[in-house]
């Protein structure tokens, strides 16, 4: 282009003229080759940095989150005292379910006293029965109660029951709580850690896979060990259903109109510019829209999957429309011409011939749009999906109007809590989210590979 790239030949010219050979590199060529090498290395480094960032990100999330799928349980014999659980002696399920969760704690404490004495006999120091009882999660009462209500015949017998241990003991066995940090922590005592070691050695305490992390509802601030993702998964599923049922038909209809029927006029121009701009509007703005229109104006319930689903639908629409239009455009005009030629109407040509051929592309775009919607957090924060929800929503359609959370919002929720054990939960929830995203993307890739046609 210009001579900027060329060496200042005039200055160097006369001196190197006598011994000029193509086999010997002169200084200038060497300098330029060096610059070339450096540039290339720089490019390689940039790619490497990108890949490295991905690897570090994944490793950090995986290493922080994988332990959350395992939880520590304490096995103990417990006598289900009929005098407390079923005073009437009739095993009437209704009477049993009236006994409050609170009444179960003395029983658990009693069963652990025996264990504490056993440990003391083996030489455990400074361990009071209360300390041992404190090692069990606060959620244990409720679990025992559920078990008794489900099996009323067990009342009066001594059963072996597995209690969740509290988060500190669990984190100790996972190596996150050390004796030094425990000494500073008012919620755990070094004696308890010693007892935990003993119990692990005797086989009474063990770490195993914990399905409750995936299925159980969220738990309160003080019980990270019992917190699960059940409600969040259900909420996300409901929202995805709404997005699929609304965004796919609306998106496809809009694309068909814009791509196949719309005449070039002011209105269609406005719509097109609109769609490309909507695709770039920050997601939080859609949250403000949802709050102002769906909640404040239309009085839909707060924290409900229906509102989340509607907001995410509006957000996903541009993505689906852009993908659908691309795949409609990829169907060659000869298909349309052939259909019109044998007497089909324009509408018949599109619906009977073009649309089926574009379907794989549309489906791929829709799955990618859904994946984007699944991971979206910010708009859901504004429509109140951060609320603490413990009850599973009902089946749709009623459940769509009941409070729920979503998977990414649950992650945010976990990070806002004081107990460090929730960091592990948040990372675990992210892993679940990423697994879903990977599955969706794989399905999209497979669909594309299998059905994509080159014309």
């Amino acid at each position, binding site marked *: 282009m210009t001579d900027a790239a060329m060496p200042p030949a005039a200055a160097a010219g006369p001196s190197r003229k006598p011994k000029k050979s193509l086999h010997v590199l002169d200084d200038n060529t060497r300098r330029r080759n060096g610059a070339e090498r450096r540039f290339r290395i720089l490019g390689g480094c940039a790619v490497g940095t*990108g890949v490295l960032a991905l690897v570090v990100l994944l490793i950090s999330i995986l290493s922080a989150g994988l332990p959350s799928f395992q939880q520590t349980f304490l096995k103990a014999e417990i006598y289900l005292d009929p005098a407390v659980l079923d005073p009437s002696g009739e095993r009437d399920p209704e009477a049993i379910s009236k006994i409050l969760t609170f009444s179960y704690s003395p029983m658990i404490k009693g069963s652990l006293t025996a264990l504490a004495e056993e440990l003391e006999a083996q030489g455990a120091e400074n361990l009071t029965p209360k300390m041992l009882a404190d090692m069990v999660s606060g959620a244990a009462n409720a679990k025992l109660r559920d078990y008794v209500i489900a099996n009323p015949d067990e009342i009066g017998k001594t059963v072996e029951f597995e209690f969740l241990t509290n988060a500190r003991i669990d984190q100790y066995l996972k190596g996150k709580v050390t004796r030094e940090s425990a000494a500073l922590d008012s919620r755990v005592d070094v004696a308890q850690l010693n007892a935990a070691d003993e119990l692990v050695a005797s086989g009474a305490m063990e770490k195993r896979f914990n399905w409750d992390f995936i299925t159980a509802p969220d738990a309160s601030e003080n019980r990270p060990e019992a917190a699960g993702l059940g409600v969040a998964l259900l909420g996300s599923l409901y929202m995805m259903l709404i997005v699929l049922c609304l965004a796919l038909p609306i998106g496809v*209809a809009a694309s068909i109109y814009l791509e196949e029927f719309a005449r070039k006029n002011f209105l269609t121009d406005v719509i097109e510019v609109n769609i490309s701009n909507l695709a770039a509007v920050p997601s939080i703005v859609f949250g403000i829209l949802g709050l102002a229109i769906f909640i404040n104006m239309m009085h839909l319930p707060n924290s409900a999957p229906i509102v989340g689903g509607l907001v995410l639908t509006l957000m996903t629409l541009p993505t689906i429309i852009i993908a659908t239009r691309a795949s409609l455009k990829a169907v060659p005009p000869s298909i349309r011409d052939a259909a019109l030629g044998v007497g089909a109407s324009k509408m018949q040509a599109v619906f009977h011939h073009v649309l089926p051929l574009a379907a794989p592309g549309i489906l791929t775009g829709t799955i990618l749009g859904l994946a984007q919607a699944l991971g*979206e957090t910010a708009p859901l924060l504004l429509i109140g999906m951060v609320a603490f929800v413990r009850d599973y929503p009902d089946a749709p359609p009623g459940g769509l109007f009941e409070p729920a959370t979503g998977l990414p919002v649950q992650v945010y929720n976990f990070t806002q809590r004081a107990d460090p054990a929730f960091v592990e939960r948040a990372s675990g929830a992210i892993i679940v989210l990423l697994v879903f995203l990977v599955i969706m993307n794989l399905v999209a890739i497979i669909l594309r590979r299998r059905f994509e046609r080159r014309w």
Partner: protein
Amino acid sequence: MFATIFFVLLAVLVIGGLFLGRRKAIAAAGGDVKQLHSLVSYHGWNVALAAGLAGVGVLAVGGFATRFIGLPINVIYTAALLAALAGFVYAYQRIDRDFRARNTVETMVMGLLIAASSIAILTTVGIVFSMVFETGRFFSQYSWTHFFFGTTWSPNFRGNSDLGMLPLLWGTLYISFIALAVAVPIGLFAAIFLSEYASPRVRGVAKPLIEILAGIPTIVYGLFALITVGPLLRDYFAEPLGLGESASSVMTAGLVMGVMLIPFVSSLSDDIINAVPQSMRDGSLGLGATPSETIRNVIMPAALPGIVGAILLAASRAIGETMIVVLGAGAAARLSLNPFEAMTTVTVKIVSQLTGDTDFASPETLVAFALGITLFVLTLGLNVLALYIVRKYREQYE
């Protein structure tokens, strides 16, 4: 309850319409369907669509009207059901041998297609209206000069708050600047390497890997900033250098956001670099320039407008990004130059003013809408500018 009954009855009407319309059409033709103007299925669809559209249409209008005149819900459902029935009867009695059912159905379908495409416009109108309205209420309670030019942000739910936007804007721009300072060189060099140097095998592996970064939800980056990058920067940079002891900082959020933007910059630049005609490369290489000289002196000048557009789009992303800054940047509104200090952004404050117990009459809540519209205008401006530059550039080679 009303809703369930209504939708069941509507479904009965629609499905019944499919069959009855078809049957009447066959009967009208005396059994010989070739006598009819339209295929029999169109007669069925005509009745079904007429019933369904009338019902849903009246339901939508009634639902909207009840906001203003307060109709009881059962009246709306009954009216919608009656409308569906009327649509059914009207379409059904129109069936005869010469009835142009296909044309009627196609008109109705076309109406549906147009309605679907206008949802995009309705969304934009909804966004603008929802914010303009509340912003107006905010500015009637709080002076706009204080909002746009105030340098302190201290909302106080008992009233008398300082709601100056400048510290938030400063935090937003500072973080975006750091993010772009990370993403633009890395993304650009990655795009150059992948499109000009890498062998097809390397490209086939590295390009998807980098693009995975684009598919990761922002909450994941936020958590990454919170549990890994923040503590790392604090322990190895901020504290030894005496610059601060906060894990959430401008630097944390900026670096992580930069990583998020790498694939964005690289894939856009990649497209633009590939769009530069091969003949320009060949010409430059033929004159004896090395590949890097070709890139710097020929390809970059030609691709520059497109790359500027890509950078502007990335900047608009950075400004509107929420979860990374919510988790990584902190909540303290500050005007400071120290990148290791916690600062906050417009998006963080929208979230914090609109979550929890909110009172939609107080300026402390309404300010979120003013912030929202500022954000919307800012990002929209950047997008429009970027699209304009990209489009203008494209015309040169096509």
